């Protein structure tokens, strides 16, 4: 089963929750960081990296000997990645989405394949027990979805019998949606502040049409206002855990430590949360 930890607003505690679930999960579990722009889960789970795989996409390489400057490629390309001007053809590989259209449509067979690096996938083992997979976007690379797609397409096979915990990117646009698309349950981490509340409502709007069970974790409880709770009640969203607003928690986090291991009470709380989510995912998976 797959549990995705997401949020609208960044910095609400997605990674804190994912890391704490990973160390308290009942049974084998794999932790996957799909926030490829800014992956952070490894900073807390600290896996020993055993392999780094470079991920690329196919971009065009034109053989000017064969090119007839017919413009078919440039007219098809929706991303301004290939241009023909008179008797000159230019490619802009950083604009290319890797759809392969230019290669397929060229009547002269003049467009071959080269690659652009999207980033890497790091694999490792935390605590000799928890397999960790991290997608890491190359700095300067604009497109995160194809790298995320690569990680997602392999994670089920790699996990085997283990459950999968996904640390999703922030926001509610395409990358966040694709990170939760495979999950059996979505955990939304929010905070009871005006920013947290507003972005949470966006996230609920975005994820509801997926028809997956959703559970809410309220972080920094006691800070701000109460509207997050009212919205959850109205939408029938269960608040499955609260993490109190405490300075010692923020300091613990700043040391790169896992919140579930701060004290026995938090450990028990995350243990219970893990069991609740596993139950929800089981039901969601059968639904």
């Amino acid at each position, binding site marked *: 089963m797959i549990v995705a930890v997401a949020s609208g*607003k960044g910095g609400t505690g997605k990674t804190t929750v994912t890391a704490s679930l990973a160390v308290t999960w009942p049974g084998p579990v794999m932790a996957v960081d799909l926030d490829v722009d*800014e992956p952070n889960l490894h900073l807390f789970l600290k896996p020993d990296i055993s392999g780094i795989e470079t991920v690329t996409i196919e971009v065009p390489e034109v053989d000017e000997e064969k090119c007839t400057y017919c413009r078919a490629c440039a007219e098809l390309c*929706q*991303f301004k990645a290939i241009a023909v001007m008179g008797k000159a053809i230019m490619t802009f590989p950083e604009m290319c989405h890797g759809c392969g259209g230019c290669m397929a*449509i060229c009547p002269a067979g003049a467009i071959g394949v080269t690659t652009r690096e999207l980033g890497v996938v790091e694999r490792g083992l935390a605590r000799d027990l928890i397999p960790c997979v991290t997608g890491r976007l190359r*700095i300067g690379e604009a497109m995160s979805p194809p790298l995320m797609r690569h990680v997602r397409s392999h994670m089920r096979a790699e996990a085997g019998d283990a459950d999968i915990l996904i640390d999703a990117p922030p926001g509610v*646009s395409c990358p966040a949606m694709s990170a939760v698309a495979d999950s059996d349950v979505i955990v939304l981490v929010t905070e009871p502040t005006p920013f947290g509340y507003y972005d949470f409502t966006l996230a609920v709007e975005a994820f509801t049409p997926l028809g997956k069970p959703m559970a809410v974790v309220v972080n920094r409880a006691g800070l701000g206002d109460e509207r997050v709770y009212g919205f959850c009640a109205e939408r029938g969203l269960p608040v499955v855990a609260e993490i109190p607003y405490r300075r010692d928690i923020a300091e613990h*986090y700043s040391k790169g430590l896992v919140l579930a291991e701060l004290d026995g009470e938090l450990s028990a709380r995350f243990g219970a949360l893990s069991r609740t989510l596993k139950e929800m995912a089981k039901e969601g998976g059968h639904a």
Partner: protein
Amino acid sequence: MREIVIISGKGGTGKTSVTAAFAHLAENKVICDLDVDAPDLHLLLDPQVVREGAFHSGNEAVIDRERCIGCGTCMEMCRFGAVDADGEKFRIDPLRCEGCKVCVAFCPEEAIDFPSRHCGTRYVSDTRFGPMVHAQLFPGQENSGRLVSELKKEARVLAERMGRDLILCDGAPGIGCPVISSLSQADLAVVVTEPTPSGVHDLERVAELCDHFRIKVAVIINKHDLNAGHTEGIEAMCRRKGYVLAGRLPHDTVVTEAMVRRQAVTEMDGENFGRRVNEAWTVIQGLLNAH
């Protein structure tokens, strides 16, 4: 014309609270929220919409079931896994469709339409701190750099028309497409970070992105008293990389209190936190003038 973009790499470091305070302190500017995915600046600035418009970004493929003969060419050619079998025929998942037009071009029956994609709404508004350009994507839409570029263009036109010499932008988290677009033409990137492993890690990546595009970087360390070791580490990084340390802000609930009251933190507190933000703004103004 000067343009500042406030970014963070990591979300939740205080980017928007700092932007709102700078919007309060800066004179003669246009404010621009470039976090079109999860925008929050409007919650503090209470914009009164003057003008709004639809935002369209690219196109999407839609299979006409009547004309589809179920040959499967679209599915074979789609590199994004966006085509699903639908009985004997096929359909496109709009979430996965990149709008590349390959299926449209190769469908032997010309059964695939390619309408433009309506992704959200863009606004020009008035606020108590001056004019503001902002937008809201519909949930689940592609967060394209295209919308960010359009907002920046709109802000620039507005600033020129109104004789304003500064564009103050709240950026998006991350280092991908929307952030890259927000950095184009910027004179200065202000990175708001925090002394945590994630804050440091994400600052390194987003500042390297700025270096890649040759954008000058200033750093503000929020919640600096949370972890002295990481704060020192960030300061050392700034010295090593030539980033300007514009300020250190304490861990203070006044930021949330101001948020609850829908105010910029400098409107509420001129003493501790507010004074530090004010000092940071003075440093940033100096950088802009020296530019």
